[in-house]
Each structure stands twice: as C-alpha cells, then as structure tokens.
C-alpha cells in the first residue's frame, strides 16, 4: 500500500470530530446526561454488568438517543461519501448529491407516498425508487446527447430534471389535504430525524453499507476517473462502466438517507471539501475522512436541531443556514482552497 505520510493527522482530526459529535449527541438534550454517566453505562453494557446509574439514564442513552445518534452518524457519513464520489467523478468541487436529481427524485417519491396515504415502508420504497429513477433518467438523457463534454451535459441535465421534479413536488403539495397531508410532507421535505426508531436503522444501514463498500473498493480507480475522460481511458480505465457503477453506488447511499430523514442539503457539498483540505484528494484517505467528518457534523447539527428551541428545528434549515455562507466563501476563494492539501 502506498500512503502519504502526512495523512495521519488529518484522519485523526476527522476521527476526533466524530467522537466529539457522539459525546455531544449522547449527553446534551432535554434530559442531560453527564460524561461520567455515559461512560459508566457504556462500560456496563460492554462488560455485561449493571451500571450504577438510574434506569432512566440508561433508557435515554440506549432507547431514546441511541437510534437517532446512529441514524444521524450514518446519514452524515453517507451524504458526505456520496458528495465525495460525485465531486471526484464530475471533476468539480462545487457539485453535491443533489446534482443528478437523486434528492429531488426521492422527494417526489416520498410526497407521492404521503399523498396516497401509503405506509411508512411504501413511502421509503417510493423515495428510493424515485431517486434511482431520476438518476437513470438524467443519465440516459445525458448520454443520448452526444457532446464533447459529457460530464457538463450530465450535470446540466441533472439541474433541469431536478427542476422538473421540484415542480412535481410543488404540484402534489398544492393538491394535498392541507390539514393532514401537507404538514407531513413539509416536515419530511425539510429533513428530520425526530421520528427515527430502531426499525429504521436496518433499511438505512444495508444500502449505505453496500454503496460505501463499492466506492471504497474503487478508490484508486476513482482517483484516475477524476482526470479528464480521455486521459483516464488512455490509462486503461473503462470509464463508461465505472461511471455507471460510481453513480449507482452514490445514488443508493443518497436515496437511503433521503428515504429515512428527508432532504438534508449541503452536507454532501461542504464536508467533502473540508475533508479534502485535511487529507488531500486521494480517495483512499478522502472517503474515510469525509465519512468521519460527515457523521460528526450531522450529529452536532441534529443535537442543535433538538435542543436549540422548544420545538425541533428541521435539519435542512440548519444545514442551509450553515451551508450557504460556506458556499459563498468557497466560490470566493475557489482556486486557492480546493487545491490545498
């Protein structure tokens, strides 16, 4: 294995962000838990002995906060990994998982499910199908239009299809029952982990793990794929097939996240960028760094979402408030910042 010596501090910093996010998410809230109590409960669980803390604390840690913490960490990691993959594939640090219509396709699927009063699993399934269908449509249209720069065509097609899907979401919201359905749609579209239970974790974990595995396995080929198309092909990479595999894996990971928690923007744009400044552009280090940072970041945001106000603040709103100034700063300092390593 070839590894640059300078990557260890960056990965360590990313890991520290995750640990900090976990500690904050477990201890802060309407029922505060001290770090000592948290430590005792975890040690007791690992050792199989009884913890010397009240049962209410154990219940808060394992049953109330546990599933939500796991979901936040998984979704943060998933969105960051998907963003990392899309940015590399499109050779553009300013793109994100929303770029191929994955998020808007999943959103349309979910509001359709709510509109037809389907069950939770059907809504999740529709969101998932919507995300994949949107990306497939974008990909097919994008490759039918033969151009010198297929990546640019793909990105523009994604923007156009995303706008169309957004109009579809708007139409269904307009038709929806304003007392029962519309609040549910609005709540879901803005992004929230408030309703996550243990039963949501398996349908989230399985696709996220599968997609991540594919991307990690292809990490070196993804380095080469971030070169101009013809160069990558001349280096012996079958770019067409690999592009489909990477897009499918990143979309799978995005759709699973959107199906669980609604649309949480910006994580997939901002986190890969920070990870790149920490460990450089090599995907072997970038993917783990982005996953750790994304998990820690969303844990912090979700803790803020459930504690900052008497009612829960939607995640999508918080990430947008943080993401927009970041994006403007990114645009302003564009050439300098993303080449730092």
């Amino acid at each position, binding site marked *: 294995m070839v590894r*640059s010596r300078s990557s260890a501090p960056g990965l360590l910093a990313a890991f520290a962000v995750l640990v900090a996010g976990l500690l904050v998410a477990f201890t802060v809230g309407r029922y505060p838990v001290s770090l000592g109590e948290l430590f005792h409960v975890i040690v007791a669980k690992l050792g199989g002995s009884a913890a010397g803390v009240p049962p209410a604390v154990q219940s808060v840690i394992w049953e109330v906060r546990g599933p939500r913490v796991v979901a936040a960490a998984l979704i943060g990691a998933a969105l960051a990994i998907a963003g990392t993959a899309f940015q*590399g594939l499109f050779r553009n640090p300013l793109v994100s998982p929303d770029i191929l219509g994955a998020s808007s396709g999943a959103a349309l699927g979910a509001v359709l499910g709510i509109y037809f009063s389907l069950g939770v699993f059907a809504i999740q399934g529709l969101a998932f199908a919507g995300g994949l269908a949107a990306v497939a449509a974008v990909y097919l249209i994008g490759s039918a239009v033969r151009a010198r720069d297929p990546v640019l065509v793909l990105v523009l097609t994604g923007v156009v299809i995303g706008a169309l899907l957004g109009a579809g979401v708007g139409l269904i919201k307009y038709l929806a029952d304003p007392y029962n359905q519309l609040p549910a749609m609005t709540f879901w579209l803005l992004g929230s982990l408030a309703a996550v239970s243990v039963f949501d974790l398996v349908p989230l974990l399985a696709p996220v793990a599968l997609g991540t595995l594919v991307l990690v396995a*292809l990490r*070196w*080929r993804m380095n080469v794929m971030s070169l101009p198309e013809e160069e990558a092909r001349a280096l*012996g*990479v079958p770019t067409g097939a690999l592009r489909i595999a990477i897009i499918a894996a990143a979309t799978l990971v995005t759709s699973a996240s959107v199906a669980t928690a609604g649309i949480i923007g910006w994580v997939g744009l901002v986190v890969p960028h920070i990870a790149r400044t920490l460990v*450089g552009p090599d995907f072997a280090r970038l993917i783990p760094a982005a996953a750790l940072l994304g998990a820690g970041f969303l844990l912090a945001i979700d803790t803020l979402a459930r504690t900052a106000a008497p009612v829960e603040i939607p995640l999508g709103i918080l990430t947008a408030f943080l993401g927009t100034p970041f994006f403007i700063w990114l645009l302003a300092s564009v050439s300098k910042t993303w080449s730092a390593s």
Partner: protein
Amino acid sequence: MILSGHRLAIGYKDHVVGRGLDIALATGEVLALLGPNGGGKTTLLKTLLGLLAPKAGEVRLGDRSLAGYASRERARLIAYVPQSHAATFAFTVETVVLMGRTAHGSLFSRPSAGDAAIAARALERFGIAHLRERPYTEISGGERQLALLARAIAQEPQFVVLDEPTASLDFGNQGRVLREIRALAASGHGVLFTTHDPNHAMHAADRAYLLRAGALVGEGAVHTILEREQLEALYGAPVQCIADRDGGPGAFLPG
C-alpha cells in the same frame, strides 16, 4: 512492434476530418505529426490511441486490430501524454505518476510497493524526484510536462504518444522535452508527437508526417521531407530557411 493505421477515415460522430490515411510507427523511432490547425493532427493522434474509433479503415497494434484490445491491455502498450494542464484536484506528483500503474493492477487494487518503486524510477529518470510530495497543481508547466512523461514511462508501454509536448513551455523546457523524446526512442519506445514547430520535428524526430485538411501531403525522413517548399505548401504561407555557415542543419522561420 508496429502501431499502424490503414486507409483510415478519422473524425467525430457526424463529421469526418480526414480520409485515406496510412501511417505506421515502429518501436525505437520517433514520428512527428505536422500540419496547420484543424488539419486533423489531434484527431489522428486520438484515433491511433484508440480513444476515437476510426470512421473507416483499421488501426493495428502488433498483429491485431486495436479495437480488439481491452482498455487495460491497450494501456500497457500505448501511453498518452496530453498537453500539460492544470488539474482539478491537488494530487501529489507521486500520485499522478502512480496513476500510470493503473493498467497493471486489477479493478479494485491500489498501487503496490513494486508500483511505487517503478514510479520512483520514473521520477528519477526525468529529474523530478524532489517534487514527489508537491501538489501537481502547484508545480510549473514544464515540471507538469515532465511529470506526465514520468507517468507515461511508469505505464511501461511500447509506444508513447504526445500531443503538442512543447506547447506552452519556455525555451529551455522545450529543449528538455525534445531530448527526452530522443531518449525514449533510444530506450526502445516508439514515439509519436504533434508539433507546430518544424524545427522541433527536425530536432527530435526520425520521420515526419505532414497532414493538411485531413489529407497526407508528404511523409519521410525529416532531412528530406522538411524542405522550405514542402513547408510552404503544408502551411500555405511563406517560410524562410536559415542555414548554418558550415553547412550544418538549418532552421525554419515563419514569414
């Protein structure tokens, strides 16, 4: 080994750039591709690299059609040195050179220690070992061209194909790259490069292939084919020839 095109029609989807082209390159020789802008140099280059399918005719590598090669197999025989460009992401120079080893590994593999040793030798060969840890985006254009040459060598190919390797380089680096092209042929590689400067062809190439408006206008050893009249016909513009006082090789000037 021979890389050759037979009765090639070259071009893009619905637009043919050139027809009836025969071209051959053997290992150990340098062939320069000269001609006016838009004459089909780059298109022919990409067709011979297998990046563009010929509209008609056939590209052959060894005793097989190039179209029958898998991309990995082809990349172990032909390396491509594009015009040096600013990359999007700041990979280190070493990582860029290691990318040349991609075709020698499997789909899911990372470069091995053996690959790293080959990359290190390639960096040594072009005198840029000290740039190993530097971001590719922060080195000079000449250094980038050398890094891309090192990447091509790390591919361990039989043929190296370069697209305007001297464009946008300063005078000293132009000479440097031309010497490296000669050295590549000396180490047994077949080298094909495009250039806008007939002097560079004269300096570094064994043979020249003159392409105008997608048609071959002349081909042969540089000393016989690169004459003032030939070049004036090729570019459709007057050319001056300056000869050395003691009868050595001359140089061409536009105008």
